[in-house]
């Protein structure tokens, strides 16, 4: 029952994020959607992922999007930002959802037996990260460094040379 409430909250936030005209309201609805998803992760027993979702998505990605909105002055202009071909986009999304829903309801995995709550203590996560997933950990460190340097380089103002 709790899962249903937060699922509806997440969906409402996502729908509002995609359909509101004011960009900052859209980002706030997105934050609600992220929060709802974090609670769903906690309900499924994935504590580390739930807290990491709040810390990274709400505390960093959403604020980054807000900064970009303010730096590109998109908050002031209230121009219509729905293109002429919105029917095609909507139909595509509906078709994708239809296929996914059919696949989910007709697959054998969905009708399996209920499992007991698995245990995912921090000790096990730490062991997994350092032993089995050590190489992906290093790779993601490299990736984040490259993304940091790249983002700073792309977004910095170009020095005007002598014209």
């Amino acid at each position: 029952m709790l899962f249903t409430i937060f699922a509806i909250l997440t969906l409402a936030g996502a729908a509002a994020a995609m359909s509101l005209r004011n960009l900052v309201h859209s980002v706030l609805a997105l934050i609600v959607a992220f929060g709802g998803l974090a609670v769903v992760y906690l309900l499924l027993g994935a504590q580390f992922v739930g807290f990491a979702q709040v810390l990274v998505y709400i505390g960093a990605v959403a604020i980054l999007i807000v900064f970009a909105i303010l730096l590109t002055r998109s908050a002031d202009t209230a121009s219509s930002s729905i293109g002429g071909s919105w029917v095609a986009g909507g139909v595509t999304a509906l078709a994708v959802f239809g296929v996914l829903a059919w696949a989910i309801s007709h697959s054998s995995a969905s009708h399996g037996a209920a499992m007991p709550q698995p245990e995912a203590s921090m000790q096990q996560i730490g062991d997994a990260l350092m032993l089995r997933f050590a190489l992906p950990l290093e790779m993601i460190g490299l990736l984040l460094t490259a993304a940091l340097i790249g983002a700073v380089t792309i977004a910095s103002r170009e020095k005007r040379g002598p014209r």
Partner: protein
Amino acid sequence: MTPLMGCLLLSALLFAIGLAGALVRRNAILVLIGIELMLNAANLNFIAFWRYGPHPEALTGMMFVVFSIGVAAAEAAVGLALIISLYRHIKSVNIDEVNSMSG
């Protein structure tokens, strides 16, 4: 309606909403928001299968999501840097106006 089916349907709905937004809206930042929603839907899918699938003690699903969150943050940073840089050139974030190969 098993719990797994509920989670998967939620994930599919979130993905469809994100996809609809990314295809329909013309503001570059809203397209990026749609992409973030799609990534979140995929993460939920992984966690649902970690919880209700075989071998949850291997923690594979959870690890995948941890790295996916990291990659999504990096991609959001670079994408927004690109949008800011684009804004400086054409003074607009409407992706319909990014249609010339010169300049």
